[in-house]
């Protein structure tokens, strides 16, 4: 740390001023920065939820939620995402214990659950579009595909991130940079599960009442 001495009066002792910002350990603020990214992502989802709230009743004489949604399928998907949350938690705990093989197994399980979620969602979207209930059918369906599709895209990119991190862990091991990346992905993954709570509640369950 550089300090500049300033002699104010010849009779007083020298005073030292900090001229540079504090130096923290590398990556010390990454977690907070990533959290703030997640909060901004949360704002984006809030806008999509607001759009769905405004347009969710505008069926344009087309099919509504009760004619389209299958709650059993959504319950299965919710289960996939919820279980993937706890398996990612186990991967984090294995990482903190320094057991890399066990961590990789839990990450692989998490990845499979994420892919299963995506497969069911793609099946659902395909089924809706086959029925003629695609995003262009009504404002309700546009808002539905925008909101649920954005969440699905997040899960897709989270899965890609998970694969790259598994490869990096294999090559470089549990170095501090990889630990930090895992902490960020962990936040991302749990955050997606929180958003999904909003989706299944406000889109599917309230639509079916």
């Amino acid at each position: 740390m550089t300090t500049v001495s300033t002699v104010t009066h010849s009779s007083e002792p020298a005073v030292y001023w900090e001229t540079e910002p504090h130096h923290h350990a590398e990556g010390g603020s990454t977690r907070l920065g990533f959290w703030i990214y997640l909060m901004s992502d949360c704002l984006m989802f809030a806008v999509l939820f607001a759009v769905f709230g405004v347009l969710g009743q505008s069926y344009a004489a087309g099919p509504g939620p009760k004619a389209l949604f299958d709650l059993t399928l959504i319950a299965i998907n919710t289960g996939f995402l919820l279980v993937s949350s706890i398996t990612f938690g186990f991967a984090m705990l294995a990482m903190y214990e320094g057991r890399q093989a066990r961590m990789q197994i839990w990450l692989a399980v998490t990845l499979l659950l994420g892919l299963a979620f995506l497969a069911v969602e793609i099946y659902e979207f395909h089924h809706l579009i086959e029925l003629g209930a695609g995003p262009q059918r009504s404002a309700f369906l546009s808002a539905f595909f925008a909101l649920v599709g954005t969440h699905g895209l997040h899960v897709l990119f989270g899965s890609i991130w998970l694969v790259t991190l598994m490869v990096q862990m294999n090559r470089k091991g549990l170095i501090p940079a990889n630990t930090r990346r895992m902490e960020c992905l962990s936040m991302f993954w749990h955050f997606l599960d929180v958003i999904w709570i909003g989706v299944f509640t406000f889109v599917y369950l309230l639509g079916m009442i």
Partner: protein
Amino acid sequence: MSQHSIKPHSHRGEQDEHGSTGHDNTRNDHGSYRSYFTGFVLAVILTVLPFAIVMTGGFESRVITALTVIVFAVAQVLVHMVYFLHMNSRSDEGWTLLSMIFTVIVVVIMISGSLWVMYNMNTNMMPQMEHENFQGFGS
């Protein structure tokens, strides 16, 4: 002296302390197998109940069903925050919690404001259309 009003202080002592332990003050809870299990069981309960209520037809009043489902969702979000995201007022010197409170306030304003304004738009701007145009179709 007047142009330098900030007090000089040393940061060196703190830095040494951090360097020796290898940890910094942003260290957070990792949770444990027990806390993950607790969170998971709570989340499963809070998911299964609203699904069961809606899939069996819900209560007689739609409003009560909707409110119950929303209460379950809010409770589950809190469970996820505490047991999976390890939220507390200490992590990152409180900045995590503070930024989340700010986000929640903005989200509430944005969603409730949108619904309020658009509801008023729909009820106040469209009456002629609904009453005059559609009556002719016998609807």
